[in-house]
């Protein structure tokens, strides 16, 4: 329950029973291809629009997670989902297909951990037996929404990030085997006055740093408590800034335990500039790669800090700065390894 200012500790240990991760063609060529349940070689996923393709990503990731737990849609009480598209239609339309009672969320790229935090809280409080939390993004649909047409020849600066085409879903349950969710820290909206939408990492780093520092303070943890603290997604620019900011606050994480999901997903040489981003990035990397490593015993305790830039294309044109947010969720191996 409430611990400190803004952290929930889950004493009933909600279990991640199963996960589903689906990616696109660019992710299939990336470093973590083996950790995806399903990869598509077509950015359209056989649909006639990118928005519909993203809806299919959500549907498939949720269905995969439910299938892997050998359950049916009726066995799931609630679904939390969100994405980056106007009025979060891909998630809501997937909710229509899946017919699971649905909460739509928007927290930009922080949606992945926002949904998981809420799902875990409800499970912990026995408000449900099983909840699905999903987050997705689609490169072309997001570019269309926030930037220029995909085929437009505008040169991007080296600080720009590449939106991941992926969806990740986690099935949280009161009982079962798998990694457990131990706590969640809900972040404040922080705006340090940056306004360049091609430099999200720089804008989001203070929000990530604030949430991380708050998490360690609220739970009164030593700096070396986690085997891995992974942000999603600060990229090449934001990660070193966040590191410097938390060190300023007197929290020195051990070397190499502070990483970024957006820097894990792609291979060296893929043209992604400062790294991956998007709600689907932290969701698919966490629910795929990182939980797989946890199941293999390589990681025991991890903290995922999903960061979101809460801008709209209109707010940017109206010369507003970019408010940012970060939510952290901690996972622990245990509750019976599979």
């Amino acid at each position, binding site marked *: 329950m409430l611990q400190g200012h803004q952290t929930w500790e889950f004493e009933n240990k909600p279990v991640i029973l199963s996960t589903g991760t689906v990616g696109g063609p660019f992710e299939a060529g990336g470093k973590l291809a083996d950790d995806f349940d399903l990869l598509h070689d077509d950015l359209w996923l056989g649909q*006639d*629009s*990118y*928005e519909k393709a993203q809806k299919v990503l959500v549907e498939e990731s949720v269905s995969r997670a439910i299938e892997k737990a050998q359950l049916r849609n009726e066995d799931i009480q609630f679904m939390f989902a969100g994405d980056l598209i106007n009025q979060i239609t891909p998630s809501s339309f997937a909710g229509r297909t899946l017919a699971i009672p649905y909460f739509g969320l928007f927290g930009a790229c922080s949606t992945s951990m926002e949904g998981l935090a809420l799902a875990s809280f409800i499970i912990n409080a026995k408000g449900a037996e099983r909840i699905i939390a999903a987050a997705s993004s689609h490169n072309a649909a997001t570019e*269309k929404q926030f930037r*220029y*047409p*995909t*085929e*437009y*020849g*505008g*040169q*991007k*600066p*080296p*600080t720009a990030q590449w939106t991941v085409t992926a969806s990740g879903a986690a099935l949280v349950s009161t009982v079962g085997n798998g990694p457990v969710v131990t706590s969640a820290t809900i972040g404040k909206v922080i*705006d*340090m*006055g*940056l*306004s*360049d939408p091609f*430099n999200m990492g*720089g804008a989001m*780093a*203070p929000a990530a740093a604030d949430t991380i520092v708050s998490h360690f303070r609220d739970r009164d943890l030593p700096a070396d408590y986690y085997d891995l603290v992974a942000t999603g997604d600060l990229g*090449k*620019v934001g990660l*070193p*800034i966040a590191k*410097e*900011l938390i060190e300023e606050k007197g929290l020195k994480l051990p070397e190499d335990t502070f990483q970024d999901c957006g820097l894990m997903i792609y291979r060296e040489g893929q*043209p992604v500039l*400062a790294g991956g981003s998007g709600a689907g990035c932290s969701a698919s990397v966490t629910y795929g790669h990182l939980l797989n490593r946890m199941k293999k015993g390589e990681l025991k305790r991890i903290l995922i800090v999903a960061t979101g830039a809460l801008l709209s294309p209109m707010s940017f044109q109206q*010369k507003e*700065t970019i408010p940012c947010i970060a939510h952290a969720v901690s996972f622990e191996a245990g509750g019976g390894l599979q």
Partner: protein
Amino acid sequence: MSSSKGKNVTPAQQKYQMLQKKHELKRPVVKNCFRAFLVGGFICLIGQGLHVFYYTFFDFTQRTAGDPTVATLIFISVLLTGFGVYDRIAQFAGGGTAVPVTGFANSVASAAIEHRTEGYVLGVGGNIFKLAGSVIVFGTVAAFVIALIKTILIQWGGL
């Protein structure tokens, strides 16, 4: 990039923006200029080749060969946009592919392709000049102002 101009910036924000600047990956300006010069120049070279080709082998004069030259460049640019190649060249070339007429053609074609899913009328028709529209608007406004100045100078200025 910070937006501190004319806005209330708290000392904490100011301090952060300094720190951020230190870590921000800089645009490789010199390299970008060099690439833009090479690629832009190469496009102009192709244009010049086409120009000579049209007035040598077809019934065009040096003055009129400009029209088919521009049309050919636009055609090639739209074709490359449709095949999904133009934006990749542009990431390398920057201004080199944006400034020539090929860049304008790309901005129109890419918007048309992007909004095809919303139908021909509201999608393609309504969005085709999404990027190029402001170029046309301010180009026309500028031309009008210049024409006005010229007319005034000739009519009443006695030039």
